[in-house]
């Protein structure tokens, strides 16, 4: 496909922008585009977060993001293009950690599909997040969700 050009599924240390990721969807014949933008939160459970440290298994994570896109196309036949980009490294409060962009001819499917994409990313993509507070740090996860099932 567009070898060497923009990647649709990427783990990067670069700063993210929603516009830039939406721009990776090249098809002009679309009726609706949605972008989910994940942003680093300043506090969790009442604790003040100084910054987050994201880590990934980048080669596998990019494959998994592609897999999530394949699952979306299987469920919502009208979805045209999908790009998912996750940032890793040290992220400050308010910085963008992930952008998911989807396009389709009509609006309904993009809402459902983007919801699925972020849930699935949190469930199976090999990406980890360490919260660093003023008085300590912790790797955060909701745990493996489906025992013995997916992925």
């Amino acid at each position, binding site marked *: 496909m567009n070898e060497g050009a923009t990647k649709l599924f990427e783990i990067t240390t670069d700063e993210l922008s929603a516009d830039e990721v939406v721009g990776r969807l090249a098809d002009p014949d679309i009726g609706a585009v949605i972008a989910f933008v994940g942003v680093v939160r300043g506090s969790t459970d009442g604790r003040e977060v100084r910054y987050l440290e*994201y880590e990934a*298994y980048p080669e596998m994570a990019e494959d998994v993001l592609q897999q999530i896109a394949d699952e979306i196309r299987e469920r919502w036949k009208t979805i045209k293009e999908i790009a998912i980009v*996750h940032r890793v490294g040290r992220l400050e409060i308010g910085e963008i*950690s992930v952008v998911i962009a989807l396009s389709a001819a009509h609006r309904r499917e993009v809402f459902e599909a983007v919801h699925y994409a972020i849930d699935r990313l*949190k469930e199976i993509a090999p990406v*980890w997040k360490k919260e660093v507070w003023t008085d300590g740090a912790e790797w955060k996860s*909701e*745990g493996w969700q489906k025992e013995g099932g997916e992925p």
Partner: protein
Amino acid sequence: MRVKVRLFGAPREALGRCEIEEELPSGSTVQDLMDLLMEDYPALRSHSGMIRMAVNRKYVSLEAQLREGDEVAFIPPVGGG
């Protein structure tokens, strides 16, 4: 046979390294590798209950057979997004 094991997140920090090489008898499974790792690296033991394993970038079951040169990954509970 030799396999490479990659570590991430909490278990990587616990061990202080991101890669291990292990020598195993041919025909070994992912479970055999797990058992060997727990023996050789006690720091990994407290993480073992929550770990999923991947071989060559795909999640696998513990019964999966390993081959010479496989890249195995120790995947603690993920937390992206």
